[in-house]
């Protein structure tokens, strides 16, 4: 054994078994992006439940030579690749999240005022405007559909659709969706002010009627039957959502409901966040597309908000009991953030005008509307 041999051995180990010599500028940039999202999650509390694991996922996979998102020689997936493959690629995690969301959701405000469903449909306007917009920039039809759905402000639906139609955009789409969802209180108020007059903002809506337990119990069955009959492609999402809600309203499986609401939801959120973050490796992510996705994502949110408000204006032309147009913006999902924004805007004008429960109606309709839009897109490509 000579010193030269030892030197070669050390160099060989350094270059093939350590990360430092293999670190390139793109990876460093991605590490900065990761730290930004971690800062937004921890320091600014922007959607921390998702942005923190996503940020950490980006951080982790952008170190060189890490056996996290590849496959072993025998074909077994590395750690995060396994989470991604079985959770996201197989479309399991978004549906399980919908189960948890269903178990957490009280459909009372929507059942008491079913007219608000139309607001949820109108608020999908941005989804389609963005779809056309990104087509002009060379996105494929499938990619355009997944970018469009960002404006629905529904994270699991965005991830579900993107994993199905354009998995290469998963990271950018999920990040844009969750970032803008966190920024709903900043994005929506100026549009709401612009599209409403003070008189309209002062409209007081009639107290919602009480909804019986029996009615709440039967709702998931009716909704599942009608939606799945009309749009079968949305059955995985809507079926799990309504199943979760049925468990909740049945009042006989409290243990299962609590598990779906808490433990199960938290577990899948961890795996979803880190898997989505891990898709953002420098070589995949550093293109113009994420930039455009972020630009169009913002436009998407703006148009969806405007779509909801304009739908209320149109509805008010025909309704005797007028709807406060501020609740139109809650038609984008972002439950319950956008409903809170509507409420806060309302009480700024009139401290005694409580809009929260009224806004929860279009808010929940937005969830159903976004899932329906996703179903329409999936059906389009079949």
């Amino acid at each position, binding site marked *: 054994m000579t010193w030269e041999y030892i030197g070669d051995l050390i160099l060989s180990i350094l270059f093939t078994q350590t990360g430092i010599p293999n670190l390139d500028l793109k990876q460093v940039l991605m590490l900065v992006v990761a730290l930004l999202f971690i800062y937004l999650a921890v320091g600014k509390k922007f959607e921390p439940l998702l942005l923190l694991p996503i940020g950490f996922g980006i951080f982790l996979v952008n170190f060189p030579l890490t056996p996290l998102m590849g496959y072993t020689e025998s074909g077994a997936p590395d750690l995060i690749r396994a989470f991604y493959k079985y959770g996201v690629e197989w479309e399991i995690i978004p549906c399980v999240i919908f189960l948890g969301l269903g178990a957490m959701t009280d459909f009372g405000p929507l059942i008491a005022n079913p007219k608000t469903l139309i607001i949820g449909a109108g608020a999908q306007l941005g989804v389609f405007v963005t779809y056309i917009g990104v087509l002009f920039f060379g996105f494929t039809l499938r990619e355009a559909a997944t970018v469009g759905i960002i404006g629905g402000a529904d994270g699991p639906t965005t991830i579900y659709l993107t994993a*199905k139609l354009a998995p290469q955009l998963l990271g950018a789409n999920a990040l844009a969706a969750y970032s803008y969802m966190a920024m709903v209180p900043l994005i929506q108020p100026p549009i709401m002010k612009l599209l409403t007059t003070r008189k309209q903002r002062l409209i007081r809506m009639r107290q919602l009627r009480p909804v019986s337990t029996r009615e709440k119990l039967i709702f998931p069955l*009716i909704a599942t039957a009608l939606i799945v009959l009309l749009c079968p492609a949305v059955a995985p999402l809507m079926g799990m959502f309504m199943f979760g809600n049925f468990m909740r309203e049945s009042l006989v499986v409290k243990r299962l409901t609590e598990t779906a609401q808490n433990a199960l939801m938290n577990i899948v959120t961890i795996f979803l966040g880190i898997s989505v973050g891990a898709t953002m490796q420098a070589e995949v992510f550093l293109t113009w597309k994420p930039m455009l996705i*972020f630009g169009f994502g913002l436009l998407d949110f703006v148009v969806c908000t405007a779509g909801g408000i304009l739908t209320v204006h149109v509805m008010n032309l025909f309704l005797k009991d007028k709807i406060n147009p501020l609740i139109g913006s809650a038609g984008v999902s972002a439950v319950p953030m956008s409903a809170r924004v509507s409420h806060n805007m309302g009480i700024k004008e009139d401290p005694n005008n409580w809009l929260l429960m009224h806004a929860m109606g279009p808010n929940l309709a937005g969830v159903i509307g976004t899932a329906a839009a996703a179903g329409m897109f999936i059906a389009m490509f079949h």
Partner: protein
Amino acid sequence: MKKGPINQSHPIRAIRRIIGIFFLLAVSSPGWAAFSDDAEKPKPEFTRQADRIVAKLIPRGKSTSVLIQFHTPDVKLIGVEGVDFDEAGQKGMDAKDFRSALFAVKAGGLSPGGEIKVALSSNYFTQATELWVLNRALQTPWMNANAMNTERSDRVQELVVTVKDGGPFDSDGAVNGEILLVVGPKDSFWGYALGTLLIRFFGIFLVLGVLMAGMILAGLVFQRLDRRAEASKAAPALRPAAEEPEETPEAIDPETATAIGVALHLHLCALRAAAAMNLERSDGSSWARQGRSQIMRDRLLVHDRAGRK
């Protein structure tokens, strides 16, 4: 009102930060490379079934495969191959309009200078689908073949084009008893994208509209059932009440009396407080208003996303 998780005094800063970092990333990126990747390029696979050849491919804008059947009724179909659109030279044509690829169809066994019919059939074609022929030997290489588009009983559209040996549609250019037809089914990409978009946007209104109608109907039924149930509960309760002797003050237990006393006291305190704050202008009693405010505050806590454990 509880303050949200976002620093609202600098609302634009957060958006700027994110967009700024992405701009930096974009500038450092390898350019528009991602746009030139034709991720949806159809890759047909061919199988022969008796005198027909079937191409199986995933067209642009689809997730599932479709079948296109090639048939030359009167002569021998020698073979069909996929033609790369880029290599074929797409001057004046958009690859996106040819969603199911270009094909080179070779047929033989006809008399030199004779004519044959080439039929392409698929349930993927529509009544608007056209057949376009490419012949690079001509000055205008792309031609609309004006194919006859007919719908068969099994919901399959059949496009039939007549090709003359050595004619403009024959790419080998020779009168040799063989035909080489380079052809592609063409549908307007933007027509499809916009058309399907409109239909699907109104589809959402339809789905949610039907759900709304279902819910209104179910609501009416349940409200009626609930009213009936309440009425039947209330009716038998009234009758025995009239027969029973009046309740004497001695029958009320001390705990109930204390509860009533406390409730009256709180009510009177609330009235005094409301009078002092001059809150009498809105609808309902002060007791009702205070209760409502308390309930709504509790609800807001439930909907506090950031504070949720």
